[in-house]
Every structure is written in C-alpha cells, then in structure tokens.
C-alpha cells in the first residue's frame, strides 16, 4: 500500500459526534491544497460522517481503515 505523507494527526479518539468532524474541518482549513491529514476516531458513526463530510466539502478521503476500536482516515485537502 502506498504510504501517504500526512503533515498532522487529528486525535478525535474518545470524542462523540460532531466533534471528530468539527476538529477535522478546523484542521483541514489550515492545510495547503493537496496536503493530507490523518484522523483517528473511536466514534463508529464517523465512518459514515467522514464520507458525508468529504462528499459535501469536496476534500478527498484517501484511506479508511479500522484497527481494534480506532477508525483511521486519511483526508486530502482539495
């Protein structure tokens, strides 16, 4: 699997809706276009919510995986 360089990690583990999305939005705003960020969350709803957020904002969901109870996403700013 190609490794994608992420400049920062958003740690939303332990946070409920909507904070993983709120924190992602705040972090992605600080990125340059094309830069990627890693999001870690434990909210199971985040799998659907991150996809919806990407669909509406136009940012790209590059990777999505789950390890134990932690969901990991890699998002690239458009």
């Amino acid at each position, binding site marked *: 699997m190609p490794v994608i360089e992420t400049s920062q990690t958003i740690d939303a583990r*332990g*946070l*409920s*809706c*909507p*904070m993983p*999305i*709120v924190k*992602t*939005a*705040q972090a992605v705003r600080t990125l340059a276009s*094309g830069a990627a960020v890693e999001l870690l969350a434990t*909210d199971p709803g985040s799998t659907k919510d991150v996809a*919806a*957020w990407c*669909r*509406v*904002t*136009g*940012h*790209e969901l590059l990777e999505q995986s789950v390890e134990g109870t932690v969901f990991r996403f890699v998002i*690239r700013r*458009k």
Partner: protein
Amino acid sequence: MTVATRPTFDPLAEAIGALEGLSDLADLPELPLAGPERASAVDDAKKLKDILIIDYSGDLEKVWAALILASTSGAMGVRTRVFVTFWGLQVFVKDSVRITGQNWMQKMLSAMQRPGVSHRKLSKMNFLGMGPWMMGRLAKQYGVASPRELLEAAQALGVEFIPCQMTMDMFGLKASDMIEGMGEPAGAATVIGLMTENSIPLFI
C-alpha cells in the same frame, strides 16, 4: 390438458424487473464524485444551499441539538445562520451576566431562568438541576461536547448568530449582555427572506 392461467400481479417480481432494467445504467460514464480535480468540477456545478436554524427554545436538550447541527453545518462548509429568538436568545447572553432587563418584570424573568449557554434546564426531568447535572456527567463520560464548546466551535467555523430585535427589546437585553461575535439584530422578514431564497430552515 392445459389450464388457462390468469397472469397474476406480483409487485415483488415487478420491482425486481424494474431494478434489473436499471443495471443498464452501469454502462453509463462514472459520476464525477471522487478525486480532487473532479471535486472542483462538482463544486462548480452544485451550489450548496444555506442552512438557517431558528433557535427558539432555551431548553438544554434543544439548544444542544441546535448547536450540534450548527457546528456540523459550519464544519461542512455550508453557510450557516442561527436566528435566536424568544427563549433561545437567553442562551446567547454571557454566562457571567446574572440579571438582565430594565424593568422589574424583565429582571424577574431573568432571575427565574438564569441566562447563558451553561445554565440551561431540561424541558423534562429537570428535578431542580439534577437532570442537567447527570446529562453533563454522561456527556463528559461519552466525549460529547458541551453546548458551550459547540457554540465556540460554531463561531470559529464562521456560523453567524443573529439575535431577534423584538425579543431583545421585550426582555430588555442590551448588546453588551450578549456574547461576543453576535450578528446585527434582525426580524422576521429577514428570516422569511432567507427561507424564500436559498436557506433550508430548521425550527428548534
């Protein structure tokens, strides 16, 4: 011997038949939904609607819901306005302000229900503050942001909070009573105007 059978109507079979017909659509070019280049093309094509939340209630659980939706909407890059009116306006008074109003009735109302986002009561099961206290404990335990945190996040994400001028007057609220960053007070015509233009309204 052949038996003439009447063709029977089977809605399930009809539905399946209709779905199978749709498989032809798979041959159509892929919809431009993923990828950064494609995403910008989608942005050009689709203009997102605005969200207009009318925060009428001052009850803890409704304020919470309104602020969850407002902060999420802001996070999704949607232009979001929250029109705060009647009991909802009390939420946007500074937590530190105890008594508001100019005359005894206005002061009495603020004394009976302390204003501020951190002093909300539940509409049901308030039990002299026991209900909100338990809700607060549960929220912390489950990583749910408090209304105050959500309000701050919403403001940071550019959500606009518009106070109702009429309610400001009726409760004797001054601009200095309200939290920082509130918009210019406006009225019902502003709300209806937004609804008829490009805003999806929510009344909470």
